[in-house]
């Protein structure tokens, strides 16, 4: 019962949803200011979701109804779970269980996979093309991502528990202060951009090419869930990286301000990269991730093994 409460209210669904929507507002406002627009009021993401929830849901003819409608829910559930795990451990490192890093890494791919399944299920050629691009993108960014995530694990001499990582960073300084950690963090920022499917890696959704790709056929509540999942990802993923590389967010006293500013800084960085880059082609993204970024990640791993 208590666990269900954790999952649904705090630090699970409700908390993540609210923070995610506020984060998406920060992103939208920042984007607007960069583009000389005024930008929306802070409650805009909330009323967007509410409005979508009230709209009619249309399932395209010939689409597999169950798969089409359940795919967004799978994504939502997995991102909620990631957030719950990361926050529970962040608040109380002793709650960490063996292998929770691996679980989180797995769960972080599920939203993309859910999007892919939904796209293929809708039987729209644009959605299929978008879904196949999503697949290529996952294949390209997972390799440098995993390599970069190994660096903190090596640093803490093989701890695959988020809690141990946090206590290590409390004692020995942030992972990112090391040379290897710095390189790994640099790699991870690009992966972050791709995982959130923001420019220059918004390839699957490419508005002007595929009319938002996999989600082209979604409407009403399922679309609201997809948008909500995206907003929650925008909150959860940077938090996970902060826990891995920047020592997490501590909640005692004044430290919380420092913790929040870490997140806001990362969010601003994401938003600025998004607004100063055009979209890449999917083959260029693949080359970028498997080429320079993988090499960098390998260098980081080697440096970490050497103790740098």
């Amino acid at each position, binding site marked *: 019962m208590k666990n269900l409460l954790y999952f649904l209210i705090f630090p699970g669904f409700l908390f993540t949803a609210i923070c995610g929507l506020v984060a998406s507002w920060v992103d939208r406002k920042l984007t607007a200011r960069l583009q*000389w627009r005024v930008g929306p009021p802070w409650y805009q993401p909330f009323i967007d979701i509410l409005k979508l929830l009230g709209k009619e849901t249309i399932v395209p003819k010939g689409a597999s109804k169950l798969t089409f409608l359940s795919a967004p829910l799978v994504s939502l559930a997995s991102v909620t779970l990631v957030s719950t795990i990361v926050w529970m451990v962040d608040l109380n490192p002793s709650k960490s269980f063996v292998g929770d890093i691996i679980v989180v890494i797995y769960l972080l791919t599920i939203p993309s996979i859910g999007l892919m399944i939904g796209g293929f299920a809708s039987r729209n050629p644009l959605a299929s*093309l978008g879904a196949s691009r999503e697949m290529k993108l996952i294949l390209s960014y997972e390799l440098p991502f995993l390599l970069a995530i190994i660096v903190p694990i090596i640093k803490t001499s093989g701890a695959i528990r988020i809690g141990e990582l946090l206590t290590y960073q409390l004692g020995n300084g942030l992972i990112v202060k090391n040379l290897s950690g710095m390189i790994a963090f640099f790699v991870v920022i690009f992966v972050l951009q791709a995982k959130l499917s923001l420019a*220059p890696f*918004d390839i699957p959704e490419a508005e*002007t*090419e595929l009319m938002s790709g996999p989600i082209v056929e979604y409407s009403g509540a399922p679309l609201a869930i997809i948008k909500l999942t995206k907003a929650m990802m925008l909150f959860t993923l940077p938090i996970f990286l902060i826990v891995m590389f920047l020592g997490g967010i501590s909640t005692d006293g004044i430290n919380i301000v420092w913790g929040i500013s870490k997140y806001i800084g990362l969010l601003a960085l994401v938003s600025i990269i998004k607004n100063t880059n*055009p979209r890449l*082609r*999917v083959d260029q993204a693949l080359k970028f991730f498997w080429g320079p970024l993988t090499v960098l990640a390998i260098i980081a791993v080697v440096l970490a093994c050497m103790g740098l």
Partner: protein
Amino acid sequence: MSHRTIIPIGPYHPLQEEPEFYQLLVEGEKVIDIDVRIGYNHRGIEKLSESKSFDKAAYLVERICGICSTSHPLAFVQAVENISNIEVPERALYIRTIIAELERIHSHLLWVGLAGHFLGYNTIFMWAWKYRESILDVFETISGNRNHYGMMKVGGVRRDMYEKDFPWITRELDKVVDKVIMLKGAVLDDPVIHARTKGVGVLTKDDIINYCALGPTARASGVDIDVRRDDPYAVYNKLDWKVIVRQEGDVFAKTVVRVLETLESLKIVKQCLENMPKGEIDSKPKDIPPGEGIGRAEAPRGEVIHYVRSDGSNSAVRHKIRAPTFMNFPTFKKSIVGQTVTDATIILAAIDPCYCCTERLTVIDAKSNKEVMGSRELIKLSQEKTALLKKEMGIE
């Protein structure tokens, strides 16, 4: 055997601001073939023009297109002036040049913004359109309108420019020059833009000549054509400017040509403001004698041709318009086939297609060479369709 699908771009698609239908036959991401369907925007302007007097027709052809809205009336009044060899006062010619060049600046800035949007670079989109805004302010000062300036008239221009506005206009243009130079740096030095546009959708010089492509599309492939220089009208031959030509023929070259042309146009406008003579702006011609005339003008997208035949009455008996996009359309066959869907969109945008300029339709049976559908049939078809829709919706 590989799987082939049709990816529809249009008739309504975020890529386009106007209705147009491209069918891309794709294998995976690769485009195998393209089919272009036009005709969603047909308004029967040529036919309509034949029932209007020459003065009203100038107003009408301005409505062909909202972006290159001065090149059509300019070409049209030149065609009418060509029939009867009307002398146009020099001040009017200067004003025509200013309007035509300001239009090129705003059109090219608009394109740079849209191209950024198509590449997913919305910041460029917003910035370019913001810079374009001051050009529209200048238009408002000169003509009273931000678009559809209504300046062209057979024998001259409709409104004079005031000398007291010149310093302000010059200041505004100077600001735009700085901004365009900044934009040039941001767009032409961006490594990701290089990756996306260099070597993409290449048209060789031969392709351009074979397909009779025009304007910046041709100039980016090393074909040195520009009506402003080759068949000077207005006062272009009295000013100091150069035709921008690039050899590469890819999307990047087209961007470079457009950005540099914007700077040239700003130069032209400034020279016009400095050298404008005083005097009449209208030669007030009375009658248009029977005969035919041709007017050519370099629109932002290429050469516009208007052909007008008069029988001595106050309206044309035949008015034929050829817009530049009509000539640039077929090059897609060369530039898109073999590219990926991602690149296809920016290649489609690279010719800066203007569909409402292009849409003039006659269906001809290729075997018997007989006209199947002329304007009368099309109007009938449209009326029938409207009636059907009304019936379906329960109106009337």
